[in-house]
């Protein structure tokens, strides 16, 4: 079904409940076309991470459960798989907050990503060199303990580690979190390069709407566990509602809520007059 439609990942009306009572996702339907980058946007608690975890089957470890809808990845229904099976199927999630192995060296961190693959020492070195081609900064720091590297480097380690598993699809959870704009740009460039050269499809959850849309093909905006808006990245960047609510720009030049209130006040005065 999914190969016919050209989508590597299809979510249909997915519903997720935590601890049997807390409804985190109401109704999420989204598609990721093969070889494309799709952005999943929304504020804190909108359900971005939950959506990603429902796909990578990491929900179980947080006592969450998909209670409705279907998830279809690469022609397989995702139901009872565990994260390690998902990795074997070519789906790897980069968790929010980077989560490097702090006491391992940078290189050991990256090598650990190949755990699921049966590679010889020589193959691993070959793969490593390829990965270092994308993450030049990491090669310089290969012998350092990962816990002492910078936030940007840790994010790179996390992505590099995931790439060592040779994924067909990457799930990135807030790669921009807590990073300087320059580093964010650097990381998104690498993601784009990986997407183009390695053909890996990407679903990325982001709060940084602007950067995310500029680097992706398609976007979904979710709020309180529901998809509110979707479209091509270009159309979303030009959408008035998105501009006002997520990008902080509007035609009238309003930048924040104070401007909005001021304007409403002026309108009222006019009516009185």
């Amino acid at each position, binding site marked *: 079904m999914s190969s016919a439609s050209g989508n590597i990942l299809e979510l249909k009306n997915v519903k997720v409940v935590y601890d049997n009572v807390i409804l985190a996702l109401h109704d999420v339907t989204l598609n990721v076309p093969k070889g494309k980058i799709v952005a999943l946007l929304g504020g804190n608690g909108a359900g971005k991470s939950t959506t990603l975890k429902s796909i990578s089957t*990491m929900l179980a*470890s947080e006592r969450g459960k998909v209670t409705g809808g279907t998830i279809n990845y690469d022609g397989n229904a995702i139901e009872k798989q565990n994260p*390690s099976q998902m990795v074997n199927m070519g789906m790897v999630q980069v968790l929010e907050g980077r989560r490097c192995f702090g*006491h391992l060296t940078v290189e050991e961190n990256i090598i650990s990503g190949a*755990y699921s693959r049966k590679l010889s020492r020589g193959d691993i070195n070959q793969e490593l060199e390829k990965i270092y081609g994308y993450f030049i900064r990491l090669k310089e720091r290969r012998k350092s303990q990962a*816990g002492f590297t910078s936030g940007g480097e840790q994010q790179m380690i996390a992505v590099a580690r995931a790439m060592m598993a040779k994924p067909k699809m990457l799930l990135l959870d807030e790669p921009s979190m807590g990073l300087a704009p320059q580093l964010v740009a650097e990381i998104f460039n690498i993601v784009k390069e990986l997407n183009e050269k390695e053909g890996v499809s990407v679903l990325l959850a982001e709060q940084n709407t602007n950067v995310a849309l500029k680097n992706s093909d398609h976007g979904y905006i979710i709020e309180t566990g529901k998809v509110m808006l979707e479209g091509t990245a270009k159309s979303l960047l030009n959408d008035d509602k998105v501009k006002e609510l997520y990008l902080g720009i509007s035609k009238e030049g309003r930048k924040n809520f104070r401007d909005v209130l001021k304007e409403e006040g002026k309108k009222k005065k006019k009516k009185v007059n």
Partner: protein
Amino acid sequence: MADQILFFIEVVVGGLLAGTMYSLVALGFVLIYKASATFNFSQGAMVFFAVLAFVGFMQDFNVPFVLAFFLAVFLMIIVGLCTERLVLRPLMNQSEDTLLMATIGLGYVLEGLAQAMWGVEVRRLDLGIKDFPIPWIADNLKLFISAIDLTAGIVAFGMIIGLTLLFKYTKMGLGLRAVADDAGAASSIGIPLKHIMLLVWSAAGVVALVAGMMWGARAGVQFALVDLALKALPVLIIGGFSSIPGAIIGGLLIGAVEKVLEVYIGPFFGGAIEGWAPYVLAIFFLLYRPEGLFGEKIIRRV
């Protein structure tokens, strides 16, 4: 004077060699602490269970020494397998405290099982090594060092080197260290937690068996081994819970210090301070160096 120095050296060496046994038991604790960040209270019971099974195979079924050893190793792997399947997996994603309580329960089950299978009497374990000073060393260096202490030291040293190499240079070892750092992240990149748990519990079981054989040969295979194993607690506090070299050095330190204190300071307290002196040392460590000598400092970026 020369006699006194010689005597002091003898006390220290004897202590160090006895300390290797503490190191061995502490090693079992470290293995499991690294993988699941929990203090395995059943380690003492595992020591008892393993060595009692070993002696049981030899004495009740007349199995030869080497075969009995491998049977016991096999049994400990089965214990590891059952622990993973019946205790750890259902408790996955529960807090570390829950796991701690579970290991206490597991300890009682193992103690009970061991006694139900092999009986409660103290058994003699003869490894063919005598608890007497080695004549060559006694004649040439004038030191009285027990053959069994020396053997235990060598065996412990060998196991330590083996385990260190396993962790540092094998794929499984890398997986274990990754799980020790962040189990969630490890599973996100496809490291199967259950394999790692199985490896760790089996390794801890084998270490328990060897430690039990060394102790059993000396004091008889008996229930007291369970409590003796708790001596590893101050060793771990001093060496650091997550460090293999720490377990070794901590064990040696405790062994040497408790013997020296016993001999030189013990008489003022009416003797038998061996039993509690290590804990006093541990308290000082908790006060001034809580991560232990070699424990991994918690890395926190600012």
